[in-house]
């Protein structure tokens, strides 16, 4: 669906003055059906565009609204440091985590599974762990690195604006790593991220406050966004096939021989190292999705 929409625009058949969206026609549905089944999306159309979905087609376009993949965990929500070694006492659940229940494409409303099932499981197993866990000696400078990062940022007097770097990052990811991907586009994204990282060292934070400093928060988050964007583009480049939400124009078919595996990304001093983790198949062997 996303590909079909993006393709219409890419090939010049988009709607609107800038030909940059397509139209969703719901007018064949009874208003009562629309109200019952699509209350939110129709409200957005009315609030933001002044479009009445009962009688008019709605301008739409794909957007990133969920991050597939994340911190690897097992089904107890315990964080893994590699393919199977647990980090004791550390749990992750929700969109940040990757239990690998979604396969290569998280389907609609299934993000609730992450939080309802694995959020609960994380709680259960964290309690179990805490019952017998011994206190460990914490080094005296345990918080030093974090304090240093925050203080460095809080006093940053560079010339680069947070919002400008973030917008350029969004633009390159949107253009090069979203619905359609190629070796070339992903390399372009990686080059751009490298450039943005350099500029990020000269970031400017205007709020020097110690309380509720959202300027500082945005600056720190931008660093993590750069990390995540790089991991995403890097692993997407190394996965030379198409599967689920990952579509490579230069490798249009699925390649189970090589890529029926999870991508595991490791941060090294200078770069990202990629490794693979086998997929455990039980009752339901994955199959190609056909329409």
């Amino acid at each position, binding site marked *: 669906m996303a590909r079909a929409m993006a393709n219409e625009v890419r090939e010049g058949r988009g709607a609107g003055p800038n030909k940059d969206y397509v139209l969703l026609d719901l007018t064949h549905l009874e208003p009562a059906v629309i109200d019952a089944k699509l209350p939110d999306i129709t409200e957005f159309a009315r609030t933001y565009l002044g479009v009445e979905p009962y009688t008019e087609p709605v301008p739409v376009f794909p957007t990133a609204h969920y991050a597939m993949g994340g911190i690897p965990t097992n089904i107890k929500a315990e964080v893994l440091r590699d393919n199977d070694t647990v980090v004791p006492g550390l749990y992750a659940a929700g969109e940040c985590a990757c239990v690998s229940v979604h396969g290569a494409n998280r389907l609609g409303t299934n993000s609730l599974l992450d939080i309802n099932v694995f959020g609960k499981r994380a709680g259960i197993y964290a309690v179990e762990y805490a019952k017998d866990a011994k206190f460990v000696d914490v080094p005296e400078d345990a918080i030093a690195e974090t304090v240093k990062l925050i203080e460095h940022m809080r006093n940053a007097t560079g010339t680069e604006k*947070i919002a400008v770097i973030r917008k350029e990052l969004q633009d390159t990811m949107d253009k090069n790593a979203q619905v359609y991907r190629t070796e070339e586009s992903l390399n372009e994204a990686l080059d751009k991220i490298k450039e943005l990282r350099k500029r990020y060292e000269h970031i400017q934070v205007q709020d020097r406050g110690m309380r509720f400093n959202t300027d500082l928060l945005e600056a720190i988050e931008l660093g993590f966004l750069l990390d995540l964007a790089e991991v995403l583009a890097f692993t997407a480049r190394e996965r030379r096939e198409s599967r689920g939400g990952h579509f490579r124009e230069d490798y249009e078919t699925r390649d189970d021989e090589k890529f029926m595996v999870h991508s595991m990304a490791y941060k090294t001093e200078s770069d990202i190292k990629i490794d693979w983790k086998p997929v455990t198949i039980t009752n339901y062997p994955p199959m190609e999705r056909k329409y």
Partner: protein
Amino acid sequence: MSTAVESVKEIAEVPSFQVTLFVRRFDPENDAEPKWQDFDVTVFGTDRVLDALHKIKWELDGSLTFRRSCAHGVCGSDAMRINGRNRLACKTLIKDLDITQPIYVEPIKGLKVEKDLVVDMNPFYQAYRDVKPFLIASDSPTKERIQSPEDRARFDDTTKCILCAACTTSCPVFWTDNQYFGPAAIVNAHRFIFDSRDEAAEVRLDILNDKEGVWRCRTTFNCTEACPRGIEVTKAIAEVKQAVLRGRA
């Protein structure tokens, strides 16, 4: 499909225009009192008040502080007082305000201001927690609890609450002393009191029969007017009052 496309009204390129925002600022580390600060920004016809605040924060003054997350009226983070009315900044289109006048933006009232437009939400959340906003049932089901569409419809309106606090902080009773549970907590109690699967309606009704409970509502309808989700808040409160007197119908 082709007829539909031809009949669509073109969403014309909306020209940009200038607006002035007066924003209530308070820096807890340096200010004794809040003060107004004005900013001129160029916005488009499709821009919301949130976009104007972002423009200020991202281009003019990084220290401007406000909460926001989803930016389309679902998460409930950016309730604020805009031209004297509680609204979500992300659902208020600037073109719908009187743009010949400055736009006044201040924090929601009745909660302690932390910084600029950010208030301490803890008293609000505490009232919410106090009404036990979760399903209480004695059995351990082995399959899902079936509910008829009619039974589901009984509390559909109050499931829409996003806990933005626009209703509670528009309530004159809440402003007086902060002790009243407030409309949002009652809305969320309503959501479970009238849920056929729940067994703790009496417990919640008892909590809301408190002197700071439903009886402090003076039916001013501020809450209903403020709700960005269109919930009939005052009606929900009235239904809870009825249930206190006569039991859940």
